[in-house]
């Protein structure tokens, strides 16, 4: 088999494939990349059982076949070679790389591709979504997801087809929640809802760029076709809790704050907080928000910011400052709204021009036990 192709497209495809491989299981065939050779293209495939990823790149080949090889090694040598056309010749258990500009042979050990598990990239009903729109949605919610919660649904991003062609996206670790919603044509055609694993979302996020991509969902899997790459991923089992119910609708106070000022004050005050609480006390009173932190080992800090408040009542809330920061950073308007429901009840944050993105943060409570 003799293959001719552009080095940079192969390198990119191999890197994409390799990022999925966890490399836990030593000597396992799925630690390798699978390369399917067709007469006019290659498919670079990898899997970690939960996610499978396939990238299609143009090439010229004299015959068809399958090879697997160590993706990391292949990427390493490709990285070092100058851009341009390369040729790959397969020869028993070796693949021989040759660059058109560097005089040299690089023989990489290959294994028999027949042992690689068959991956079904099956048929889905795909809808089209704008890449930058979807990427923006992921960024707005992803930070609120848990990393390694025992409750699997918290380790993912929940998507839900809403009314009037909207797509809702939610992530939560039960301490905080982030919700965003966007209009997407034909979104009602996909299965109503699903929890997509964090790792899959991360891979997708890296690939999203400009233009549109195709998305599909069935009961067990989701599929993303982004450019010449296809990702098939298992979904997380289990029901995401009813998030609409926990987004408060009635408030005792609504506050408008300058986003930048808030972030800057918070950043300074946060220096006086400590893991794991990062405890900040917010006191709202007469159009002033006081942010305070106090940690016996470090000292204390307090700042005041002018706000616009709908109530004159004084309210004091203890909250994780890091959570406030994460949510504030995702707000892209000059000022934002913060809704207060009580000292021990959720705080919500949203841009001041829309209700399509909402962050919910639960307070922390310090009690003296007797």
């Amino acid at each position, binding site marked *: 088999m003799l293959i001719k192709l552009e080095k940079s497209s192969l390198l990119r495809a191999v890197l994409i494939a390799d990022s999925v491989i966890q490399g*836990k299981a030593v000597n396992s065939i799925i630690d390798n990349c699978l390369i399917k050779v067709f007469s006019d293209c290659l498919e670079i495939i990898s899997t970690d059982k939960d996610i499978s990823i396939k990238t299609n790149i143009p090439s010229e080949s004299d015959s068809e076949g399958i090879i697997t090889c160590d993706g990391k090694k292949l990427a390493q040598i490709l990285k070092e070679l100058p851009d341009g056309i390369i040729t790959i010749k397969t020869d028993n258990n070796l693949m021989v790389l040759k660059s058109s500009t560097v005089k040299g042979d690089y023989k990489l050990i290959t294994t028999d591709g027949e042992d690689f598990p068959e991956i079904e990239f099956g048929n889905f009903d795909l809808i089209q979504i704008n890449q930058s729109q979807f990427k923006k949605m992921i960024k707005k919610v*992803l*930070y609120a*997801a*848990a*990393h*390694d*919660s*025992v*409750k699997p649904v*918290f380790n993912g991003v929940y998507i839900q087809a809403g009314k009037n062609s909207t797509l809702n996206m939610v992530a*939560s*670790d*039960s*301490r*905080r*929640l982030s919700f965003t919603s966007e209009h997407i044509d034909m979104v009602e055609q996909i299965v109503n809802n699903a929890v997509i694993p*964090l790792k899959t979302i*991360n891979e997708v*996020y*890296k690939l999203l760029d400009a233009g549109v991509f195709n998305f599909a969902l069935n009961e067990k899997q989701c599929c993303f076709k982004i450019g010449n790459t296809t990702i098939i991923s298992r979904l997380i089992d289990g029901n995401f*809790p009813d998030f609409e119910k*926990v987004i408060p609708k009635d408030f005792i106070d609504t506050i408008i704050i300058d986003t930048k000022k808030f972030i800057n004050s918070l950043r300074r005050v946060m220096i006086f907080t*400590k*893991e*794991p*609480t*990062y*405890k900040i006390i917010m006191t709202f009173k007469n159009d002033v928000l006081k942010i305070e932190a106090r940690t016996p*080992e*470090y000292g204390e800090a307090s700042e005041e910011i002018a706000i616009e408040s709908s109530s004159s009542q004084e309210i004091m809330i203890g909250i*994780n400052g*890091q959570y406030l920061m*994460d949510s504030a950073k995702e707000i892209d308007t000059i000022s934002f709204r913060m809704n207060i429901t009580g000292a*021990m*009840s*959720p705080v919500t944050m949203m841009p001041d021009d829309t209700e399509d993105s909402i962050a*919910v943060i*639960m*307070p*922390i*409570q*310090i*009690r*003296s*036990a007797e």
Partner: protein
Amino acid sequence: MNATHIRELPDHVKRMIAAGEVIEGPHSVVKELIENSIDSEADRITIKIEDGGMQRIVVTDNGCGIVPEELSLAIAEHATSKIGTVDDIQSIYSYGFRGEALSSIASISHITILSKPDGVDTGARLICRESIEIAPFAGPTGTTVIVEHLFYNTPARKKFMKARSTEIRKIRESCTKLALAHPEIAFVLESDGKQLFSLQKTETVRNRISDLFGGAEGESLYSGSVSDMQVSLTGYISSPSNLKRSRLYQHLFVNNRPVDYRNLSFHANRAYDAMLPHGSHPALYLFLQIPPNLIDVNVHPCKREIKLFDSRYIESLIYGFIKKTLGEHELSVGSVNLNTDRSSDSEIHDINSERQTTAVFKQAEKIEKIETGETNSPDIFKDGRSLYNDLQDWNYLGTIFRTYILIEKDNSLKILDFHAAHERIQYDRLRKNVGQVTVQKLIFPEEYSVTPDKFSILTENLDLLRSLGFDIDIFSEESLIINGVPIGIDPGQATICIDQFLEAAVDVTIDKNAKDYFDEIRDRAIERIACHSAKRAGDPMNRSDAEALISMVFSGAYELRCPHGRPFVVDISRSELVKLFRR
């Protein structure tokens, strides 16, 4: 029934009732008599008991004695030579001050006192039966008190006396406590002609401990002292390698008076913390010296309890004392040396100990500097993390066997067991929560359903659960609702934590030996919850999690041992590595 008349009780009945409070049994008689002997400035006290003290108690001292004319006053009510005015009660250094002990004993037993003061030829003998007889006595200087037929006139009391062996044990305990407080006095204790102990006069409490419990015991103790204005605390405590299986070796003396202080064990455990494996207890011999006007000794009929002017202050003093004493002796906690043959290589040993001390100082300096970022942020949101990198003085090398993290730090290779390390952090967070809880409220409250029997265990312990940081309420007849969890606990594990709490509660209920029911449940529940909420070997541990864990572990804020006392950092110094390669 005919109407009965209200009458005042005859004096002797009143006295018998009052005596019941002072004298609980033979051990209280022994305690009162020894205290009198100590007050008389004796330097040798002999105690002999027969039939667990029920038949006879004889306490002999070589103290100042009682002048013959006053002998009958000794057994009179409220007669004392130790205080005279109300002000004196504010400055009690002697054990006695009420003038009640001997009169109480006399009202419920047959008492005989033989006493001769120094400098006179003859003393007197007092025999108190139905009436009081006084005769001359020509023995040696000092006082002998003989108490016979205790409770002969209160048969109901007598019936309730514990087994003879129990009484002997209690007598021995009373003697031991007073002997510990007075190494300058020789003590002999005999039961039915058999010597239980004979203690020579000695200079230090440590020697006294050795004489009582064996030489090795005394030598292994750490000694220390702290003082603050008018108050000082000195004493001896167990080294972490010489712990006890019971709390029997925990003694607190306030101005040399043995007192029962319920929270002593709790605060000691808090101070020993990770060095204390479950079920073990340190020995404590603590001597608090405090101006008498700051305490009230007159709150318990047996003077076993005292009121301190500020118990929080004393608790922090005790805690601080233990921490400091351990700190002075346990410099190298957490550094485990490999089992190489070091006898042949003193050089490595030296390098080692120097490195250990500097490491300790470095850690202390850094407590304030290193902090970790939120570990929860996914990889693509890495900003913020770099903030800490320039402060970092370690290098994360990787994770092996999905169990251990390898780190290069301070010129050595450190191997960290991440489950145990994380368990320690979780444990500390939960422990810190005791007294002041930080609760993370949940967006999605968790319902917890249980069987009726478990439901009732949980509802009984609801306050305890809350004090650990669980915001929990009864939801229905067989379910609870969890609205918040202690900070640092994964909300997804809320129900698992309650499972663990329940198991701890069931364990403690079954275990008859458990002393303080709630304390014990809390301790065991914290251990279980820490263990279950910590990452386990085999769990994924990505780079940012590992780095967050490392910076916490080396922040100096944590003991480098898991809650069961096992170290979780193994340290191989450069020189040890060199040696392993036989260079």
